């Protein structure tokens, strides 16, 4: 196994495994927000704004994995 092959496998693993957690978390956050909006429709403005910020925070984790994958593929420090 060369370093290039290991990097590709590592990049695929980073994105595939790293997407699972944020996907579950975003699903739960949206479900909770939907329930809150259906119980209290007049607060939907505040809820959806907070939801967007929260989703951005959760999504950051997935994007960190994406960045790691991109570094492995395109800016790998161990590949000459």
């Amino acid at each position: 196994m060369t370093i290039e092959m290991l990097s590709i496998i590592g990049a695929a693993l980073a994105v595939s495994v790293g997407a699972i957690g944020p996907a579950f978390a975003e699903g739960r956050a949206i479900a909770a927000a939907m329930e809150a909006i259906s119980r209290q429709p007049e607060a939907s403005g505040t809820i959806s704004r907070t939801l967007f910020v929260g989703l951005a925070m959760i999504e950051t984790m997935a994007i960190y994995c994406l960045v790691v994958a991109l570094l492995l593929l395109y800016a790998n420090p161990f590949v000459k």
Partner: protein
Amino acid sequence: MKLQLHPLQTEILFNAGPVPITAEVVTTWVIMVTLVLVSWLAMRNAHVRGGWLQSTVEVAVEAIGDQIKAILGADPWPYIPLLGTLFIYLVFANLSGVLPDVVAPTAHIETPAALALIVFFSVQFFGIKEQGLGGYAKRYLEPNPLLLPLNLLSQITRSFSMMVRLFGNMMSHEFIIAIVLFLAGLFVPVPFMLLGILIGMIQAFIFTVLATVYVGGAVSATEAK
């Protein structure tokens, strides 16, 4: 839309002396000129009963002001020049990627990095201006002086995550379109490009809201998370 298959490399158009000028910089200049020109045209002869352009610009600025006021819970107007400009520029920059032969400036890491640095220094500036140097510095020693390294670290990581979030979203979107184009053909990426318009607007909104939350946390007397 112009497809590039290396996310970290930029295309150099020409050299201005020793400084290489990339395609994204030219796009940014065009956006800047457009925004300045529209603002100047709209507010050149500002009247109480203004024309259609003045009214449009006023409605947009008022809407941004209302949103920022709802988040800050305080007078938003000292912060509108920064945050409003940030939002309007980001909307234009993110949506410029839809045009043919144009690369969205935010899809390369330099522009998000610059914007995140601007937000980082503005947060410190507004905090010091609002609370004084001592009052703002004390913020870092709360709730316990032992947490000073963590507070400093959180300042840096949240700027970094702002940069990476904007860059990652815009860049990965272009990437997905390139891959779908290779795999499926000419008209299949069109729904993805429509989704890209939505993603661009949402990312501009999120970036501005986060900047507002950070500024609000720095200027308010009580600690924000």
